[in-house]
C-alpha cells in the first residue's frame, strides 16, 4: 500500500478537559453530600497540617469533617490528624507535584459512607503546579506563613489569583521573625485586590474564629 500524504487534523481539545470532567464529577459528589470542599494550597512547611489539626479538634464536635491529604510520600500527616474525630484519607502522589481530580476521586470513595459536611483537601506543598488543577473543590485557600517573606504573593501571583481566601499562618511568631504585616497585606492586595485575608496562629488559637466564620459562611452560601 502506498504511503499516504500527511494530512492535518484539527483537534482544539483542552489538555485539562479530562481533569475538568473528573473535577465536575467530584464536585457533584461533594454536593450530593451537601459538603463544602476546600482545596488548601501552600509551600511545604507553611502550616497546612497544623492549621487542620487545630481545626479538626475545634470543629469535629459540631461538623462531620474529612481530610484528603496529599504528599509525595509517607502517611505522617494523616497520622498527625488522626484521632480528632475526622475521617482522614492519605494520598501518596509518588513523584507528582500536585493532586489532580482523579486522585481526589479515588480518595473520596473512602468517604462514601461518611458523607462529610466539610472536606479539606490538603494539596501537595507547592505554590506552582496545583494552580492548574481543579480538584472539584468549591473554594481554594492559599496559606502564607510569616516566615516566608512578605513578597511571596508577588513571586507566585498565579496561585494567589485563584484564592478565595488567604490565610496568614504562624502569627504567634510574627514579631520574632520581623514580619512586616502591612507589606504582606499590600502584596496580597496587589496581586488580588479585595481577596479576603485571615491571620491565624494554630498554636495559640488567635484568629481561628475568623477562619471558622469564613468556613461557616461558605457552607451557608453553597
Amino acid at each position, binding site marked *: 500500500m502506498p*504511503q*499516504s*500524504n*500527511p*494530512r*492535518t*487534523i*484539527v*483537534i*482544539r*481539545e*483542552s*489538555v*485539562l478537559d*479530562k*481533569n475538568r470532567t473528573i473535577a465536575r464529577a467530584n464536585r457533584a459528589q461533594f454536593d450530593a453530600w451537601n459538603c463544602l470542599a476546600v482545596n488548601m494550597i501552600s509551600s511545604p512547611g507553611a502550616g497546612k497540617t497544623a492549621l487542620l489539626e487545630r481545626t479538626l479538634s475545634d470543629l469535629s464536635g459540631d461538623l462531620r469533617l474529612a481530610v484528603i491529604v496529599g504528599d509525595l510520600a509517607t502517611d505522617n500527616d494523616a497520622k498527625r490528624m488522626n484521632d480528632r474525630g475526622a475521617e482522614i484519607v492519605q494520598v501518596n502522589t509518588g513523584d*507528582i*507535584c*500536585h493532586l*489532580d481530580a482523579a486522585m481526589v476521586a479515588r480518595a473520596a470513595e473512602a468517604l462514601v459512607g461518611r458523607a462529610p459536611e466539610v472536606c479539606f483537601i490538603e494539596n501537595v506543598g507547592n505554590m*506552582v*503546579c496545583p*494552580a*492548574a*488543577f481543579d480538584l472539584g473543590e468549591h473554594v481554594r485557600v492559599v496559606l502564607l506563613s510569616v516566615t516566608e517573606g512578605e513578597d511571596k504573593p508577588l513571586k507566585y*501571583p*498565579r496561585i494567589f*489569583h485563584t484564592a478565595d481566601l488567604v490565610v496568614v499562618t504562624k502569627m504567634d511568631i510574627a514579631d520574632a521573625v520581623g514580619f512586616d504585616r502591612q507589606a504582606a497585606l499590600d502584596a496580597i492586595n496587589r*496581586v*488580588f*485586590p479585595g481577596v479576603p485575608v485571615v491571620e491565624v496562629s494554630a498554636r495559640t488559637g488567635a484568629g481561628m474564629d475568623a477562619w471558622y466564620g469564613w468556613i461557616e459562611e461558605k457552607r451557608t452560601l453553597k
Partner: protein
Amino acid sequence: MHELSLMESVLEIASRHAEEQAATRIHSITIRIGDMSGVSIDALTFAFDVLARETIAAEASLNVVRVPARCKCPECDHEFETDSPFATCPRCGTLRTELVQGREIELASMEVS
C-alpha cells in the same frame, strides 16, 4: 514540573485522535499555550522529547503557539491585551476586568498519515 503530566495528556489525546483517523504516524503536533496558563514552554518541550519517544509521535515535531492574554472590561466592554489577569481597564479605569483569553493549554491540531 506539572508539564510532564500535561504532556502525557497531550500525547494521550493525540494518540486517541490518530487511532480514530486510522493513522499510523504523527508528523507534527501543534499546541496552544496561553501566557497566563502557568506552563513553562521549555519544560513542555523537554517533556515532549522524553515522552514522545515510545509513541507513534516519536518522529513528530512540536509546534508551540503562544496565546497572548486578553482582558475584557465588564463596565465598558473594552477588550485589551495584558500581562496581568487583574489588569485595570485602560479606557474607563475599572479595577476588576476579566481574563477572556490566555489560560489555554490546548492540543490544536496535528499532521498524521
